[in-house]
């Protein structure tokens, strides 16, 4: 506000002093931004742009870059591994996004009350999110052991005769990864939902109660609509993070058994850094980026339409 009055003084003509002031501001602004911007430009912005260009080139660690148009994409769409990785990534997202969202919301609603010691519960539920990923993956791998792991012992105890083989079975490895990631992530999204819930004015609930709305009706007609901006943010963040899932899978299953848990970002890594096919792997990156962008824009449109 106040800086505005300096650079773009209310109405009067642009005097020389104003222009001088503006130039000074530009200089000052840039000196603040520059230390970060140089690093950001060199190691984020340029690589992002380069990834686009690379996907239309053939470039391996053994050959010079060469423009090949859409050849990388043709090869990709004809490749089995790409479709398997895409399918696994989508399945992972379809499991991870709704489950994490639902559990995070339930936890947030449970914990959104003034009770002594409530902080402890919030903190405890949040903690898995910041626990080192390797430790999480290693522990869950053992919990999931098919024969004598605690999870299958528990399933046996409640009467499930043939518990799944989890990470050793190509059908159950992906669900095992999803369960682990939901457990790890829900605390984070719970915090986001808690912030959203706390921003809802209590008057809304009181008014609904006066009107005789049941708890269920209040949930659907007050809580859910008021949380819409939070939900938008949560869905976008969750989707983006689902499509870039990488480290959890590398550590837990390394894509196996077979190719049953190979995901897109793992394929990019294998092709690009593992085998040095820079161009081809960038084409896969572009697909990953377009998916994430589409989902984000779509969510944004839905959100806008609802607001109208």
């Amino acid at each position, binding site marked *: 506000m*106040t*800086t505005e009055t300096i*650079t773009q003084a209310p109405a009067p003509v642009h005097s020389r002093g104003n222009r001088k002031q503006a130039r000074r501001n530009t200089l*000052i*602004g*840039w000196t*603040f*931004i520059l*230390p*970060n911007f140089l*690093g*950001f430009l*060199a*190691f*984020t912005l*340029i*690589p*992002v742009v380069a*990834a686009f260009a*690379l996907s239309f080139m053939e470039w391996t660690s053994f050959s010079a870059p060469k423009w090949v148009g859409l050849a990388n994409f043709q090869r990709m769409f004809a490749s089995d591994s790409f479709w398997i990785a895409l399918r696994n990534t989508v399945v992972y997202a379809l499991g991870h996004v709704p489950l994490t969202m639902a559990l995070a919301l339930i936890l947030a609603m*449970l914990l959104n009350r003034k*009770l*002594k*010691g409530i902080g*402890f*519960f*919030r*903190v*405890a539920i949040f*903690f898995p999110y910041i*626990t*080192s*990923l*390797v*430790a999480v993956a*290693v*522990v*869950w791998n*053992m*919990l999931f052991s098919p024969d*004598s*792991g605690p999870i299958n*012992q528990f399933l046996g105890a409640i009467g499930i005769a043939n518990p799944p083989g989890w990470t050793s079975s190509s059908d159950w490895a992906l669900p095992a990864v999803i369960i682990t990631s939901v*457990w790890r992530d829900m605390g984070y999204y719970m*915090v986001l939902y808690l*912030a*959203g819930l706390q921003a809802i004015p209590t008057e809304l609930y009181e008014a609904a109660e006066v009107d005789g709305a049941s708890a269920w009706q209040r949930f659907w007609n007050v809580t859910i609509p008021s949380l819409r901006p*939070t939900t938008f943010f949560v869905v976008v963040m969750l989707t983006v993070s689902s*499509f870039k899932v990488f480290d959890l899978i590398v550590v837990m299953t390394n894509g196996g058994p077979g190719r049953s848990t190979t995901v*897109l970002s793992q394929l*990019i*890594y294998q092709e*690009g*850094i593992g085998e040095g096919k*820079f161009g081809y*792997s960038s084409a896969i*990156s572009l697909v990953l*980026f377009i998916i*994430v*962008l589409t989902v984000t824009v779509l969510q944004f449109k839905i959100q806008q339409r609802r607001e109208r």
Partner: protein
Amino acid sequence: MTNMAEDLKATHLRDAAPLPNGAATAEDRRRTDRKRSPREQKKRTANIVIYGVLVVLVVALMVPFIWMLSSSLKENNQVLTVPIQWIPQEFVWSNYTDIWTRIPMMGYLQNSLYLAVIITCLQVLTGSLAAYGFSKVRFPGRDVLFLAYIGTIAVPWQAYMVPQYIMMQQLGLTNSFNALILLQAFGAFGVFLMRQYYMTIPDELCEAARIDGLSEYGIWARVILPLSKPALASLALLTFVNTWNDYMGPFIYLTSNRLWTVQLGLRSFVGQFDAEYAMIMTGSVISVIPILIIFLIGQRYFIQGIATSGMKG
């Protein structure tokens, strides 16, 4: 972690008896005055039920940690037993002394600490400077530039890791800490988080300082920085924990064992000795402890930081 579970039971018992008063708002009190006993009674039972649910829930969610800690104190052949032993038959404390000689754990911890500290310092410093430029100094092109920052947050890092790798290879920085420092210290997230916070600081404060003759750098250092301690703490803690826990960065760039971080060291230990269940769990516990300590000290800032970055502005 068992300690934590006991704490939890203790608070549960302590708090369940004399309940609402502390939490009741003025309005609640006014309302309860009218028909005190039935309402209060109902609220109390409801609270006890909620505590019960929460305790069960938290214990269930903590099972992986409880199991990790208990297994770390067992013999290898005692870890995956039928039925499950939650408390080790005998406590094998030697796991915690042996691990240091089995793998170079100390070196791993030092490497992780070194990376986390340097990256955190750079990120906080450059992030808060840039955030000041983006929120308190007005100049042409500023908002477009900020949009570019925000835009890259939405681009999955995996989508440009290959160009980054090629670049580092050309610079001869692969297999060195410098590659990771350069890649992670200038993140857009830090700028975003700090800017979100600076936007809530009224511009009038800066204006007053300007009139008092402070330069913009002076305002940043003497007015804004002291006011933004909570945000600085949030950013520092989040960056530290992210760097400490990062697996992919070190996995891609650090090939020689002497540069490995805790995460890489632990992963390779699992790969080499996959039947040493107890020792693996010991390593996992050791890799989590620094995070637990930092988290317990600064948990308020973690939660605030996440809530802030979740706000749109």
